[in-house]
């Protein structure tokens, strides 16, 4: 295996055209796979010192996050703390300090795990990814970029340059809950992230995304359509959880069974609607 460190996007784009070249960001997914023998790159292209990929830029039309920004740096940014609390909550629960000091959002996206927590938050904020090659750039919705386990829209030689999150509603109330076997360092068995805006007791806008229950983090459009324009009450909680159970397509694996995951998602969606709407009459917390 060869190793090449690049320090500019020009060098990076050229290096990625080499046969068998693999992009190396924080290495927290890549090195685990290499150790397990699941991946044997011919050439590792280390892009961690390409400064243009590590910037965050807070602009009136939204926040640009370099694909190579370390998650601890993303978490420390004022814009993320102030305007994107769901992203902050999600990243806070991702791995550990040690992992977040290396890991990047570009890696979380390109690794394309159904459990990728960062991806879930980016989808909830309607994020877009800018993909680049030697010859140009294109932009895709995050939800189009992740196709399934380890499958993305990346073409040969292409890399993720940045992630764009549009300026959020100021009245979004965030919710994130991940069910795992323990608190730290947990790969989600099932997770729900959401944003909710309410006026006069009625839901006026909502986003719900579920993790680990479909080939990629999944926006639960049927749930969103069902609850918008309605007040949060017991009936709504019951129908929304039922819609969530139906919308997901979980699998059985070593961590949990499919029916269990389906039930957890139903409960988490109810909990989201209850907590984010400040509703208290829906029964005991799951």
């Amino acid at each position: 295996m060869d190793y090449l460190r690049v320090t500019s996007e020009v060098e990076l784009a050229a290096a990625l055209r080499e046969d068998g070249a693999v992009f190396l960001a924080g290495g927290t997914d890549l090195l685990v796979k290499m150790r397990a023998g699941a991946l044997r790159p011919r050439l590792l292209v280390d892009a961690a010192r390409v400064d243009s990929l590590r910037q965050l830029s807070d602009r009136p039309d939204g926040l640009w996050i370099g694909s190579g920004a370390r998650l601890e740096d993303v978490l420390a940014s004022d814009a993320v703390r102030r305007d994107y609390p769901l992203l902050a909550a999600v990243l806070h629960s991702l791995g550990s300090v040690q992992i977040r000091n290396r890991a990047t959002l570009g890696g979380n996206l390109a690794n394309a795990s159904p459990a990728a927590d960062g991806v879930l938050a980016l989808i909830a904020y309607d994020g877009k990814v800018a993909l680049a090659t030697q010859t140009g750039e294109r932009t895709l919705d995050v939800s189009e970029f992740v196709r399934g386990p380890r499958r993305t829209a990346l073409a040969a030689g292409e890399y993720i340059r940045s992630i764009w999150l549009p300026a959020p509603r100021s009245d979004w109330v965030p919710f994130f809950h991940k069910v795992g076997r323990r608190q730290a360092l947990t790969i989600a068995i099932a997770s729900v992230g959401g944003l909710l805006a309410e006026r006069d007791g009625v839901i006026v806008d909502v986003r719900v995304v579920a993790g680990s229950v479909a080939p990629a983090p999944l926006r639960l459009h049927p749930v969103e359509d069902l609850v918008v324009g309605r007040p949060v009450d017991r009936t709504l909680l019951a129908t929304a959880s039922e819609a969530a159970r139906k919308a997901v397509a979980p699998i059985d694996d070593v961590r949990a069974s499919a029916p269990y995951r389906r039930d957890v998602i139903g409960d988490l969606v109810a909990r989201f609607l209850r907590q984010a709407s400040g509703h208290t009459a829906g029964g005991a917390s799951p």
Partner: protein
Amino acid sequence: MKVRFRVNRREAAVEVDPGARLLDVLRNDLHLTGTKEGCGEGECGACTILLNGRPVNSCLVLAPQADGCEITTIEGIADGPHLHPIQEAFVEEGGVQCGFCTPGFVMSAYALLRANRSPTDDEILAALEGNLCRCTGYAKILAAVRRAAARLALKPDSEHTPEAE
């Protein structure tokens, strides 16, 4: 290939395989065996070191990725024969049983106390979330970090004060 870094304030230049993990280079080439390998995949924190001042899992860093960087290992925090106050606190509180996890916990605590002189218990637990211990049940580790924080707060200008990067 040749990599160079500063380890515990000394220059080091090592010939490595591009796929060599920093953990192995520290232990096998530089004989800094205080850094331990538990899981080898980022879960246990036994291999925690500081890379440019930040705690990372050295099992998940390739040696070439650390080229040109400043590295601190458990061997680099004592002052000659005098243990660092964090190390003393682990001894005094009984935060050590088999000791395998201890270097990693001490390095995580060191990074925390350098950034935050008076952490709350929640902040201590958050800083230690990437470190596992199979022996102590964590209570005495928490007590040790509390004690170290209190002691460091009392002597702001001593040579034991975690220095700024």
